């Protein structure tokens, strides 16, 4: 219908148009949505704190302090708070109490001025994520946060997008890391005692069932870890909106 020249012209324009739209949409969509782009966010913290040193494996110089020692209340509260300065000073009142790197911590403790840490993991305010629910389902910290005990400066591992949440709520068996000793969740032993039982017996990898959401998830009898009953197996997570948005 057209001359060769016009034909070519049109085809060329069409191709460029498609490419432009495609790229524009991609950049536009993923670029403009901050919460999608935060994977790998790795801010420098005011205090050069190394999780690798504190929580890392004893075999290569780590202290293997359980996550729960500092991040208390993760079992009971929606938040997994950054520990107060006093927690640091529990040890550092004696250990390395001269170190210049800990100056800020000591000042904070003496002048009652809190340390302002850089926040790494941030969900929008309209998302009601509850740590305790996931911890009580024996879902290990690393399922979302990655192997923090191997990080010097903590960086964001997961996308923390809604799709990412739903993937796991729908097929937990593909994503969940069962509780590991290092996290110290629900081994029922106080953080203080960990030193004595460094290799405390942990349940075999949990058989993750996928019961329909509603009522059945918690009807499976509790599994017993070294004499201490743990919470139920993780089932499928809820997928209705008001589970997280209210």
């Amino acid at each position, binding site marked *: *219908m057209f001359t060769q*020249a*016009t034909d070519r*012209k*049109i085809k060329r324009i069409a191709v460029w148009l498609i490419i432009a739209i495609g790229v524009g949409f991609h950049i536009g*969509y*993923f670029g403009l949505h901050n919460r999608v782009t935060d994977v790998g966010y790795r801010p420098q913290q005011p205090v050069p704190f190394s999780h690798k040193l504190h929580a890392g494996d004893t075999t290569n110089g780590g202290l293997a302090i359980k996550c729960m020692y500092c991040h208390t209340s993760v079992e009971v509260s929606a938040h997994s708070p950054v520990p107060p300065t006093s927690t640091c000073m529990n040890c550092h009142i004696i250990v390395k109490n001269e170190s210049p790197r800990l100056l800020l911590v000591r000042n904070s403790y003496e002048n009652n001025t809190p340390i302002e840490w850089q926040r790494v993991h941030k969900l929008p305010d309209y998302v009601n994520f509850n740590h305790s629910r996931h911890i009580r389902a024996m879902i290990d910290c690393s399922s979302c946060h990655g192997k923090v005990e191997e990080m010097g400066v903590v960086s964001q591992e997961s996308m923390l*997008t*809604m*799709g990412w949440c739903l993937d796991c709520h729908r097929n937990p068996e593909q994503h969940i890391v069962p509780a590991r000793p290092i996290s110290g969740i629900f081994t029922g032993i106080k953080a203080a005692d960990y030193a004595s039982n460094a290799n405390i017996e942990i349940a075999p990898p949990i058989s993750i069932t996928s019961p329909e959401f509603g009522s059945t998830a918690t009807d499976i009898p509790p599994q017993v870890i070294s004499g201490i009953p743990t919470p139920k197996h993780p089932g499928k997570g809820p997928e209705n909106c008001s589970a997280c948005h209210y």
Partner: protein
Amino acid sequence: MSATTAAIPDDMQNVSGYMAEAMSPNEEPFREPLILGNPSMHDVSRKIIDIIEGKVTGKYLATLAVTATLAIWGIICTGYTIVTGIGVWGLNNPVAWGWDITDFVFWIGIGHAGTLISAILFLFRQKWRTAINRSAEAMTIFAVICALLMVLMHTGRPWFAYWLFPYPNQMLMWINFRSPLVWDVFAVNTYFTVSLLFWFTGLVPDFATARNMVKNSVAKKIYHFFSLGWTGSTRHWHIYELAYLIFAAISTPLVLSVHSVVSFDFATSVIPGWHTTIFPPYFVAGAIFSGFAMVMTLLIIAREILNLKDFITLKHLDNMSKIILATGMMVGYAYSMELFIAWYSKNTYEWATFYNRLTGDYAWAYWTMVSCNVISPQIFWFKKMRRTIPVMFIMSIFVNIGMWFERFTIIATSLHHDYLPSSWGYYSPTWVEISIFIGTFGIFLTLFLLFAKFVPMIAIAEIKGVMPNAQPHHHEESH
């Protein structure tokens, strides 16, 4: 140059040949001509291309200035709404849709006549359409643009309006396919796309003519691009006619579907006065009604400003008046039927709503609608009236007003008194919504004026087809 100009008559032979086969074999000799002043083929092209080439008249510029001002004012108010929040409109709790959706339906309705004229009348071989179909299609496209603006603006967070489209996203969320609003999104966008392509296809040969005739080199380049290398060869004509026919066939169902879908927004709800099975046909009839009125308004203006009296003749206007009369009585029937069923159903809420329409706070809107849409068109029973320009002009305005009030009555009046008396309220617009509505008129008219200036606003090729000397047996008849 001369070669191409010479080429035109040959093409025309093809066209007229095609047309000749297509049209009914025995033409009544006494049927009045569609083109006056018996111009030659070349005169036709010349006359129409002159509009493009000729100097811009002061009259034209003045009109454009006015409409452009309105358009810009409307856009400013739109921005104000987006920045401040939709609360700057008068909407409130019982009445959450007001002028915004009224205007949306109004503009979609306007669009319909365009497609009807260009597609359906084409399939029915109504030759009188040739003079007006081009501008009618243009009108459709511009009207739908205004409608889309309104439907975008009525959302509380227009910057998220893209969520109404189904696309893979990080939320793993799909749109709700049960929602009539989603159907709307599809219906209106399809309609817009098809109308645009249909219009452009029809324009290709005329762009070619323009390309051949304009002196200005820049204009020539542009028309050259848009004419897609049209040479006017028989092969081109055959493909063209085929494409045109196909588009006509695609658009025809759209005329019915789009407004039916729009009416589902209301018909599928539970609100008395909305929840009505009669809506789809009722809306389509109304759309054609208002559409033709708008075409009439525009053409009467156009033939004055651009001096096209020879092409847009009284016969065209007469025919349109007849259609207005007919569709007007259809909507009249719809009104009475709604009312009757409301009474006959003995449904408390239904009847309360309609009784409230007749007598309530918004009764003035209802009666404006009835008098503009049902009573006043009756004047077209008289042939004299169908041929008096001022009467037709005023009538066309009346109908547009009436049809706007029809949508307002359906939307606002049904909402402000629904089920629980405790939540009854009253809605009146603020200057912002009014400005935005006026703004859409500005946008619409501005686009139309630009179209009239830069695009052959009458289908040159087709109009040649219906000229007396395009008929094979023309000479026998003449003496």
